[in-house]
């Protein structure tokens, strides 16, 4: 053998961390190489933003509080919707890995297997961050203005990141459980579509029927949208910021161990 091989001699925890970094790099390369998905990352948010603002803007504006522009109102909602849909790529990626047998290869290596999930979730976070930034820039170009301070923006970033992470882990669960990629798409569609539309993401809640309104007021998307919206518009946030964190952290506390447990169970047959 011509090449002298040197092995890493580090504590197990450090090695497991390195495994996660390697997997994050892998999943991130997937995002860059997957051209269709990359187009989605850039153009889908812009398309939604422009369509909603121009198509619904005029009709919804009268129902908004005085002095609030629909584009400014919409921004928070469209970001959360994009991120919620974006998080489903974790499910697709996890499902793909399990179907294609590459997880078997990873399992035959002396690596930390959960790094596979970490890789997909974290790279999803990168992708959603890019989507969000693209959307905010596009928004600014077509007239979105915010009075938020730097601290407010940090808070907004924190809420969005935590929410993305929470939904990506939920999505990882779907990816482990699903039997096919088509199944993933269908499942995420029937969960995330109602969740984002039956919320205050696009319209004020006042015009909804009482039952729908009660649902919308108490589900995570509304809290997260309202928290971001209040910070962007400089209006009182009530308990929305607190509830946004509570929901995201609550989901993480349940979803991370559950996804890991399911992944281990699925791969250790």
């Amino acid at each position, binding site marked *: *053998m*011509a*090449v*002298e*091989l*040197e*092995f*890493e001699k580090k504590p197990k925890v450090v*090695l497991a961390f*390195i*495994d996660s970094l*390697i997997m994050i*790099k*892998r999943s991130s*390369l*997937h995002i860059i*190489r*997957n051209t269709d998905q990359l187009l989605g990352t850039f153009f889908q948010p812009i398309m939604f933003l422009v369509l909603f603002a121009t198509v619904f803007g005029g009709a919804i504006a009268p129902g908004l509080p005085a002095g609030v522009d629909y584009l400014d109102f919409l921004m928070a909602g469209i970001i959360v919707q994009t991120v919620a849909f974006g998080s489903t790529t974790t499910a697709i990626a996890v499902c793909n890995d399990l179907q*294609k*047998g*590459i997880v*078997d*290869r*990873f*399992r*035959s*290596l*002396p*690596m930390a297997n959960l790094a596979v999930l970490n890789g997909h979730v974290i790279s999803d976070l990168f992708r959603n961050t890019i989507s969000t930034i693209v959307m905010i820039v596009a928004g600014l170009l077509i007239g979105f203005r915010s009075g938020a301070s730097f601290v407010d923006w940090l808070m907004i970033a924190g809420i969005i990141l935590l929410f993305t992470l929470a939904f990506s882990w939920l999505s990882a669960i779907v990816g482990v459980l699903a039997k096919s990629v088509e199944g993933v798409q269908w499942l995420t569609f029937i969960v995330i579509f109602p969740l984002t539309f039956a919320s205050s993401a696009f319209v004020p809640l006042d015009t909804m029927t009482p039952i729908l309104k009660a649902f919308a007021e108490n589900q995570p998307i509304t809290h997260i949208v309202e928290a971001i919206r209040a910070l962007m518009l400089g209006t009182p946030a009530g308990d929305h910021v607190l509830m946004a964190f509570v929901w995201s952290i609550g989901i993480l506390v349940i979803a991370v161990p559950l996804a890991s447990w399911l992944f281990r169970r699925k791969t*250790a*047959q």
Partner: protein
Amino acid sequence: MPTKEYAIEVNQLVKSYGSNDVLQGIDLKVERGTMLALLGPNGAGKTTTVRILSTLLKYDGGTVTIEGNDVATDPDKVRSVIGLTGQSAAVDELLTGRENLVMMGRLYRLNKKSALARANELLEEFDLVKAADRPAKTYSGGMRRRLDLAVSLIATPPVIFLDEPTTGLDPRSRIAMWNIIKKLMAGGTTILLTTQYLDEADQLADRIVVIDGGKVIAEGTAQQLKSKVGNDRLELCFVDDKAFAAAKKALGKTVATSDEKEHSVSIVIKNTNEDVKKALDVLSANNIMVSSMTVHKPTLDDVFLSLTGKQTATPKKEAK
């Protein structure tokens, strides 16, 4: 390093799915630095065995040690001494050949420098230098299989599992794969190969274990197995009744079977070179014209027919 002479030891391995007994007490011993071929039809339990030996699947009974490490109690140690390639392994399609190699090398705990150097060495060795920076999804079947094998060699593990490495390959790629495997053997790697093809086991392996229905039904060297089944046969066809009759008479005792309608006789050959020449010499000495000749090698079907009395095509459900 354990000093025992066997790199792989399997005793009374049992695995079942519900009432379906996939493995019913398999025994395997592979001496260090040799190749054992696990030969059997689809559903015989080949892949199940490899998956258990490579820590991917739990088993219900028996013991399995790889380089002295128990698969059940010390899977991490086992994983650092094995490489797995074939049906049940895979490469990342969106990553390039080089990226695949480096990534897997790092996951084998190689440091960055070693992983990269070894990746380059393997790309060279496996004739993948030109394709090194293209995503693996653009590779042909043969290239992908070579990359797959290269990936499992990235940390030069002493034990390699090759799960049907040439199934589905065209003849040229198949021979290229065989040459790579032969080189690997020359380097002293212990190899467990599964295959459906007797000639593949014959070409490559030191010893062959034939399994069917989750049981070992025969084992030995290729020569030993073939003599159980019968040897190669030379089939000769003649132009007419006269030539046929003359040939039958001239060849005498060596004729194993004959077919008057087809004007053909077959003779058993043990050493292809000598025996064919001998037969042809006899025929030309008697001025008998041969219209065609073929050498028939015993196939897996022949082995199976003689060992179990049934054809190989008995597909059962095998664990994925």
